[in-house]
Structures are given as C-alpha cells and as structure tokens.
C-alpha cells in the first residue's frame, strides 16, 4: 500500500483520435481531394479519373441490381471450391511430407520450385481441360492455393513438439487419433497461416482467370466494364472487391486470433 502513493497515476483521459489514426485520415482525405481535383482539371482524358460522385452513383447502381450479386456468388463459389480442394489436398500432402523424411527429401523441392511460379501460365491448359466456365477458374484457384497450404503444413508438422507425439504413442493412440487429436491441433497456427496465404492466392488466381476468359464472375464484370469504358462502374467494382477481400482475410485471421487468445 505504501508504494502506491508514490506512483503517479496515468492521465485518465485518452485522446479521441490517436496520432496514427489522425495521420491515416489525413492521407485518405488527401488522396480523395487530389483525385477529385484531377477529375475536374481536364488534364486527363474524360472518365479516366471519374469524379467521386460518379463512382458513388455507379456503386449504388451496382449494389442495387441482382446481376452483381449473381456474379459475386459465382466468384465466391469458385474461390470457396478452390480453397476447399486445394487446401485439403495441400494439408494432406503437407502432413505426409512433414511426417516422412524420405518423401520430403524426394518431393518437397518440387513444391519450392513450383510454389512461386505464376499459376496463370497454366490457364490455357486449364481451359482445354475444364472449359471456359467456372471449372477452369476453380482449377487455377486450386493450383494457386495448394502450394502455400502444403508448405506451411509440412513446416508445421516438423515444428510439433516431439514430446507430444511421444505422449500420444505412450497412450497407444491410433494413426487417425494422432492426426486429429495431436498433429492437427498442434499445427493450428501454421495451418491457419497457410490457409490465409492460400485464400489470397486463390482469390488472385480465380479473378485473374476470370478477367482472361470467362462469361460470368466479378473478374468478367470488371473486364466488361473496362471494354465498354464504363470507368465509374469499374472503379466501383474494384472498391467493393477491395472491401470484400479485406473482410475475408480478417475472418480467417479472426479464426486464428480467437484460438491464440485462449490456448496459445
């Protein structure tokens, strides 16, 4: 008790806006102001930089019509399918490579070679195999997200505390019990990280494929707006997409965050 009197209390009032938030706001407002100035300056060809009002109107128009949601659902379905297929394949391959030194020596270097290769170069093959519809987009997204998930899972598998495996063995856990009750929970952090990276590249792969050759999906709508030079609509779609991918990433991040708070 004697000590507390000598401690000066922290100031009770916290400023409403921290300096960082303030700086961010200033940057955003500056960008918007420059943008608006450019659009009215007449220096650039009409509509290359549409006014904020025009973009806002286009966005309202976009979100008020069912067509956008249909295409959004198509893209979301493609990305979801790609993540499910590529993610589970990556997980299985990663666990096997992480558990088996021989297979890892034989095959893991291929993952490292193919991992950073831009998957879009395989798109023509995917079109031949799966057609111009969602099939080829899912295939490309799957190919994209397989690698980060497989590599993180393999690394995660090797990081598992060896004593936990010995505990499982000493209690005579079956292989399935080892996988589901020890390996997977012990690897949850690297796996969530891998899925996060995988989601990002699956989104990129799918959208890139849609902009190249397709007849539905967000990528298709964007490239369609571009080809008829409807710039406000294109910008509106880019902004919505930007917000959506931030949302998707934070949902996956939250899954990892919740976990680490409770059970680090």
């Amino acid at each position, binding site marked *: 008790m004697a000590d507390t009197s000598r401690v000066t209390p922290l100031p009770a009032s916290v400023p409403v806006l921290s300096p960082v938030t303030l700086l961010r706001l200033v940057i955003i407002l500056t960008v918007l102001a420059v943008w608006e100035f450019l659009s009215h300056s007449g220096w650039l060809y009409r509509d290359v930089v549409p006014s904020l009002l025009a973009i806002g109107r286009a966005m309202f128009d976009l979100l008020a019509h069912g067509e956008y949601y249909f295409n959004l659902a198509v893209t979301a379905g493609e990305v979801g399918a790609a993540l499910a297929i590529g993610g589970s394949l990556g997980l299985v391959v990663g666990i096997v490579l992480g558990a088996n030194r021989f297979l890892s020596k034989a095959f893991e270097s291929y993952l490292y070679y193919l991992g950073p290769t831009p998957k879009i170069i395989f798109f023509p093959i995917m079109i031949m195999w799966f057609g111009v519809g969602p099939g080829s987009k899912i295939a490309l997204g799957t190919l994209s997200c397989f690698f980060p998930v497989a590599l993180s899972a393999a690394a995660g598998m090797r990081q598992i505390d060896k004593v936990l495996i010995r505990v499982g063995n*000493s209690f*005579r856990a079956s292989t399935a019990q080892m996988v589901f009750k020890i390996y997977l929970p012990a690897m949850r952090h690297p796996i969530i990280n891998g899925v996060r990276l995988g989601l990002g590249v699956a989104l990129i792969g799918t959208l890139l494929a849609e902009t190249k050759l397709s007849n539905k999906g967000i990528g298709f709508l964007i490239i369609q707006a571009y080809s008829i030079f409807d710039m406000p609509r294109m910008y509106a779609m880019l902004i919505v997409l930007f917000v959506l991918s931030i949302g998707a990433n934070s949902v996956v991040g939250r899954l990892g965050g919740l976990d680490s708070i409770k059970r680090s």
Partner: protein
Amino acid sequence: MTSTPHNPANTDILVVDDVVVRFETQEGPVIAVDHVSFGVRQGEFLSVIGPSGCGKSTLFNVIGGLIGHTSGVVSVGGETINSPHQSIGMVFREESTFPWRSVTDNVAFPLELIGMPKAQRIERARHFISLVGLDGFENRYPNELSGGMRQRVSLARTLASEPKILLMDEPFAALDEQTRLLLGDKVLQIQQQLKQTTLLITHNITEAVQMSDRILVMTYRPGKVKRIVDIDLPRPRTSEIVGSEAFGRYVAQIWADLREEASRGMRDEEEHALHHVSTT
C-alpha cells in the same frame, strides 16, 4: 565395487531381463544399456539413479516401449513389451501438456482415446485432478498454470489411464527445489494412497531416498546395474524425513556409489571435448 547379480523373482510385476541397447552413431556403436536386469515388485516404489549419460532415459524409453532394445526381454505381468503397453503409464521430463486442451480435457485424453463416453470421462478426469490437488483449475489452459502445476496435470493424465506401473523420467527436473520437494510429497501421498507401483528415473539423490523402497544405482556408460539399495525408512513419508539421521546415511551411501560414476562421466566428457577441440 563389483555389481551383484539380480535374479528377478516371479512375484515381480515388471521384469527387465538382461537388456542391452546399442546405438549406431557417427563415431561408432555406443552401448547405452549394458546387460541390465532387475524387477519391480507389486506396489513398490523403485528409483533408478545414475549420472548423466548412464542410459537411464534410454531405459525409460525401452520400458515404455517407445524405442526398441538390442537384446534381452522386458515384460510386464508376463507379457513381453515391444511397443507401448497399456499397463505402463509414462510421465515425461519435458513439458508435455497439450496447450490447446483445458486441464480437464488434458487429463481425459487417454480416456478419450479408448472411447469412454464424455460424461464418464469428465467425471473420472475430475477425480484425478482433485487427486493431484488442482481443484478449481479444471477449465484453465496450460499457459495459465505454473510449471509445477502443468507437471501435475501430466501426472493426473497418466494416472487417469490407470496404469499398473507408473513410469516417470525425472518429472521434476525442470522445477525449482521447493516445488520439487512439495511435489515429491504429493507424488508420495498419491502413490501410498493408490498403492501405485512406481518406477522413477532420476539423478536426484534426495528425491530418490525420500520416495523409494529400493534404489537402483547405475554406472556411467555403458549403463550397468551397480547396486540395489533397500531404503528402510518408515512410511508414510513426507519431505520432513529429509532432515533425519537415517536419511542422511542413505544419501551418503548412495552418493559414495554415484560419485565414482559421476566423476568417471565427467572425465570422459572432458576428454571427449578435448579430443574434439584438438581435431577441429
């Protein structure tokens, strides 16, 4: 000092008979365990003590069925052990709780593996949590507990599988001296309450004398049985016994045996290090 032969009696629940463990290393074969034989009687507390590098942890893993042995036989209740056996419950030296499981779920782990219904295994887990004195911590996670508490969770987890033999490898090695003594009391109390047959691997003489009915002293590499000492101290025991005269005599006796081995080990390691420095 010569090692006396130890013929396992038929009443022994665990029998280690002429076990040899040889490892192939880059510097040639190393004999970790050299023709070791002993038995553990029903309900007794036996400690295996020896200097670092005497192969006692290897012995722990062999009896637990986690690693194979080169020759000889390990058997429990007449059954030969080549893989982990349900009659043997292991407690490891390292931190071994599952960080993603609550205390209850950690302790219920072995029961979950054998498919015991949830309500029943939680009830059983609660019983063993209470036994190791962790009432009130059932829903905590390991990162919210101290090292000593986590080691008690590991102990409760192993006890929950109701092994015939509790096999522990320096379970208190990572703890401070006071915690170690108090936890030793807890283990003694539980052991006496459950009449749990226990085999403790340790390098701590005080710990060994405090808890054991018999102490097996091992030699430095290759690990052989040097001597088996009967500890004739009254039970029930607590850490208070550490101050008694009889206790001191046992400690001195075992230290005399152990010092010889430990200094041999130290010389060996020094030579080894010297050799490595001169060749590199």
